[in-house]
C-alpha cells in the first residue's frame, strides 16, 4: 500500500486535531509533583478539651523533625460560624496549645488567621466561640483573612479553569502554615479536613460570603487548586469532638477523642477519613491530591502514636456521600 502526499496530509491533520482535543484530558492539571517520598502521621489520644492539651501537642510535635526557629508560623483553624451546641469550629484550646508549642519551639511569631466563610462578622465568631479571650490572654495576634491585603496569585494547578486568585498576604508570606481543621463531614464535599480548610484563606471581601465562586468552579477542583498554590506545611486536626451528618454547620457531634498531626495534608486527611470509617480513595480531592500533593497510601505513611482503627460505625453522611463508606 502506498501513501500519497494527500493521504499523509489528511492523516497528519486528523492526528493534530485528535491531539488537540484529547491532550487537555491526558496532560496533568498540576504544575509540579510535591509528594514527599514518605509522610508521617501521628494519632494522639485526647479525651477532652482542657488546658493540658499543650502537653499533648508538645509531645506530638516532638515526633516530627520540624524546625520553626525564627520562622513566622500561621495557624489556620476552621472557624465558620457559631451555633450553640454544634461542634463547628476547631476548639480554641487546641489552637492555643499549638500556638504555645510553636512558641516554645522558637518560632519568631505565631499568628492565628482565618476568614470565616459563612459569618461575615469575624469578631462575633471569635467572641462567641471562645477565641477572643483566649487570644487576648495568651497575647496571640489574630488576622482576619477575609480583610487582609491581597496579592494576585497565579494558581499552580488547573482543575477549576481559574488562572489566579487574590489571596491574603499573611498566608502567602508565612514561613510555616499549619492547617488546623475540625474533622467533619460536609454536605458538598463529603469531608472537610485540612485541605478543604484552605477555603478559609480565600478572602470574602473579594469573593463574597460564602465564597460562592469556589462552589461554581467545583468544590473538589477548588480544593486542589488552592492546596497546590498555598502549601500546607503541617496539619493538626481536631477530632476530639468531630461532626457527622449534615456538616459543616448542622451535623451531629461525634466524639472521636483523637488529634491527628501530620507533615503532609493528603496523608493527614486520608488518615482522618479512615478514622471516620471512610475510604480515602472515594473522596475526589484526596484521590486526585495523592497524585501530586501528598501520600494517601498507608504504605507511604509512617504511622506513629496510636494506630488507625476504623470505627465500628462509620460517620454518617448525607445521601450523596454514602458511597464513602458503603461497600
Amino acid at each position, binding site marked *: 500500500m502506498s501513501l500519497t502526499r494527500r493521504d499523509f496530509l489528511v492523516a497528519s491533520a486528523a492526528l493534530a486535531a485528535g491531539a488537540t482535543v484529547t491532550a487537555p484530558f491526558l496532560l496533568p492539571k498540576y504544575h509540579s509533583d510535591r509528594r514527599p517520598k514518605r509522610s508521617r502521621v501521628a494519632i494522639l489520644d485526647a479525651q477532652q478539651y482542657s488546658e493540658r492539651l499543650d502537653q499533648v501537642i508538645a509531645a506530638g510535635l516532638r515526633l516530627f523533625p520540624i524546625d520553626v526557629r525564627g520562622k513566622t508560623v500561621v495557624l489556620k483553624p476552621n472557624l465558620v460560624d457559631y451555633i450553640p451546641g454544634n461542634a463547628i469550629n476547631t476548639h480554641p484550646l487546641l489552637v492555643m496549645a499549638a500556638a504555645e508549642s510553636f512558641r516554645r519551639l522558637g518560632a519568631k511569631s505565631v499568628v492565628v488567621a482565618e476568614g470565616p466563610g459563612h459569618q461575615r462578622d469575624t469578631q462575633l465568631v471569635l467572641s462567641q466561640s471562645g477565641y477572643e479571650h483566649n487570644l487576648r490572654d495568651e497575647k496571640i495576634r489574630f488576622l482576619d483573612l477575609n480583610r487582609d*491585603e491581597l496579592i494576585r496569585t497565579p494558581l499552580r494547578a488547573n482543575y477549576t479553569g481559574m488562572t489566579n486568585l487574590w489571596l491574603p498576604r499573611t498566608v502567602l508570606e508565612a514561613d510555616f502554615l499549619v492547617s488546623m481543621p475540625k474533622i467533619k463531614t460536609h454536605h458538598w464535599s463529603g469531608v472537610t479536613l485540612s485541605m478543604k480548610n484552605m477555603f478559609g484563606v480565600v478572602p470574602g471581601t473579594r469573593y463574597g460570603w460564602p465564597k460562592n465562586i469556589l462552589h461554581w468552579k467545583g468544590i473538589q477542583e477548588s480544593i486542589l487548586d488552592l492546596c497546590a498554590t498555598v502549601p500546607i506545611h503541617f496539619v493538626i486536626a481536631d477530632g476530639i469532638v468531630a461532626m457527622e451528618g449534615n456538616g459543616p454547620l448542622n451535623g451531629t457531634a461525634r466524639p472521636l477523642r483523637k488529634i491527628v498531626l501530620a507533615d503532609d495534608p493528603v496523608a493527614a486527611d486520608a488518615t482522618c477519613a479512615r478514622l471516620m470509617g471512610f475510604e480515602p480513595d472515594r473522596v475526589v480531592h484526596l484521590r486526585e491530591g495523592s497524585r501530586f500533593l501528598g501520600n494517601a497510601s498507608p504504605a507511604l505513611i509512617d504511622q506513629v502514636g496510636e494506630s488507625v482503627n476504623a470505627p465500628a460505625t462509620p460517620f454518617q453522611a*448525607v445521601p450523596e456521600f454514602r458511597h464513602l463508606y458503603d461497600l
Partner: protein
Amino acid sequence: MVTKPGGSDSDPSSSRRFDNKEISHYKVPTVTTDPIVLSDLLAELALRQLPCGGWAALASSSQPAIEPTCYSALALSSAPVGEIARAQDFLLRTQNPNGSWPVFPGDDQEGGWITSLAVMALRDPASAIPARFKGFDWLLNFAGRESNWFWKWKFRTTDRHVRFDPDKYGWPWFPDTVSWVVPTAFAILALNQIPCSCGDLEQVAARIGCGIEMLFDRACPGGGWNAGNGVVYGAAVAPHADDTAIALLALIDRREHPLVQSAAQYLEHAAPALTAPWSLAWAILALAAHRRPIASLHSSLVALPDLATIEDTSALAVVCLALDQQRALEALRVAP
C-alpha cells in the same frame, strides 16, 4: 482631653493620639448618644484615611479598598470638606469603565456588589452624577446566575438541596454566582436612591420588586436572614444579626409584612447578646429604622471595650453611623 464613659481619663496614650487633630471639626449635631465617644471614633476614622483618599480594610493595612472607604465617607460626612472630597475623588478615580466598582484599586475590572455602596457614598456631589448613573445602570444589569433560564432549570430539577425559588433573584456578591442576601439588600438601598425613572432606568421598580421577593424567599424559617441559605438539606440554618439588619433596612417600605415583623422580632431578641461592634451597630440602625427601641443597645455599643482600636475599619465606620443613626438613616434614605 477626650475620654470615654466608664473609661479612664488618665490614659496618656489615648489623649496623645488625638492631640494633633482638630476634634472640634467633627460636629455631630444630631447625635442622640454620647457625642464625645462619637467624635473620638470619628477622629480615629479620619486618622486612618490613606494619602490616596481611601481607607484600608484593616487598620494595619495600607491597601485602600472600596467598602471601608464608602462606610467611612458616609460616617465622616460632617467632617472637614477636604477629607470627604478626597474620599469622593478616590471613589470617582477607581470606578471601572463599565460603571461598576472594583473591590480595591488594581482589582480585576469586572466589578461587584460594592458598586451599591459607592453610589450611596457619592450621593452628594453634583460632579458624581454621571458616575452614579453609570453605576446604577451597571447594577440594573447585574443579577444572580439563577436569573438565566438554564440555571433556573438546573435549580428546579437537579440541584435542590438548598430551598429557594430561582424565579426570585437578586444580586450576587460578584459576577457568575447566585444571589445573596447582603448584596441584594444593598442594591435595593442603592436603587431606591435613583432620583427619577428615566431612560434605561425604567426597569428599576421591577428589579427592586424581584429583589424584595428574593429576600422574602430566602428568609430563615424562624425569622431573619443569614447569607442566603434558609434551609439546606432539610435543616433550617440559623439567621445572622448583621445580615438580618441589612435586609431589614432594604425592606423599610414593607415594614408591616409578616416576614419583616418576625425578622425585627428576631433582631430585637438577638441584639442585646451581641458582643461584636459590627453586628451590634447594624442592629441599632435597622431597629431604629423600624421604630424599635434602641437606647439600651446604644449603651451596650459605647460600653464595648477598645472601640477606637477596632482593627476592621468598616466596623469602626458602621459604629460611627450607629452612634449618629438619624443622619445615617437619612443618608441611606430609610429614616422613619
